């Protein structure tokens, strides 16, 4: 069993345009999905949702810019950590992620401890 980081990406515009009803439905889908992973005893860290607008990007030589939404279309919306026997299993879990239905994607990365 290894830990895998799931990174959720989607277009900002899509996330911001949702109506209250859509937002509520999305919340429910996320909770169902995460609860499902937890029920299989595969959830290591629920993770965090990241605030969309208030980010900064730090570059070499102490350069700090607002971002990252100004630079890339898609932005990281959040992340979680699960455990699985292999990339294949982790990917299967990732396929259930609600972000996929709004044109987003999930990056799956094997975690090595620092």
């Amino acid at each position, binding site marked *: 069993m290894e*830990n895998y*980081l799931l*990174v959720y*990406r989607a277009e900002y515009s899509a996330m911001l345009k949702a109506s209250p009803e859509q937002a509520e439905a999305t*919340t429910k889908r*996320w*909770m169902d999905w*995460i609860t499902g992973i937890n029920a299989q005893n595969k959830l290591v*860290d*629920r*993770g*965090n*949702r*990241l*605030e969309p607008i*208030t*980010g*900064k*990007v*730090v*570059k*070499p030589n*102490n350069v*700090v810019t607002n*971002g*990252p939404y100004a630079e*890339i*279309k*898609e932005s*990281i919306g*959040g*992340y*979680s*950590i699960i455990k699985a026997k292999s*990339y294949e299993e*982790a*990917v299967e879990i*990732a*396929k259930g*992620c609600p972000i*996929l*239905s709004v*044109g987003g*994607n*999930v*990056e*799956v*990365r*094997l*975690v*090595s*401890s*620092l």
Partner: protein
Amino acid sequence: MEEFALIMRHEDGKKVASPEQIQTWMKQTMDWIGGIAAQGKFVSGTGLPFDDARTVVAKNSNKVVTNGPFGEIKETIGGLIVVKANSVEEAVEFAKGCPVLQGDGNSVEVRKIARKDGMH
């Protein structure tokens, strides 16, 4: 106190680093995180290897899996830690110490953690 995610990005993660470079980078990163932890500001964190990743994306309601990290940008995530800070400026100060910034095209994204509102 708020929490901020510091997301480390390497340009072109496919560039292979020598074992010595990797070891140096690991020590620098551990020392950097240790410094934040010594100030009582560390929450959680994880490191990632340089290669190997999968991306799951939906194409025409089919779930497609590609090898490699998220492909549209050349930058790939090298690690992610969560710190405590009173403001994004303070979090940015932590980020400035990240060893990843020794590489020209690299960067550290600083994102505020959203309130726990049941969404996650």
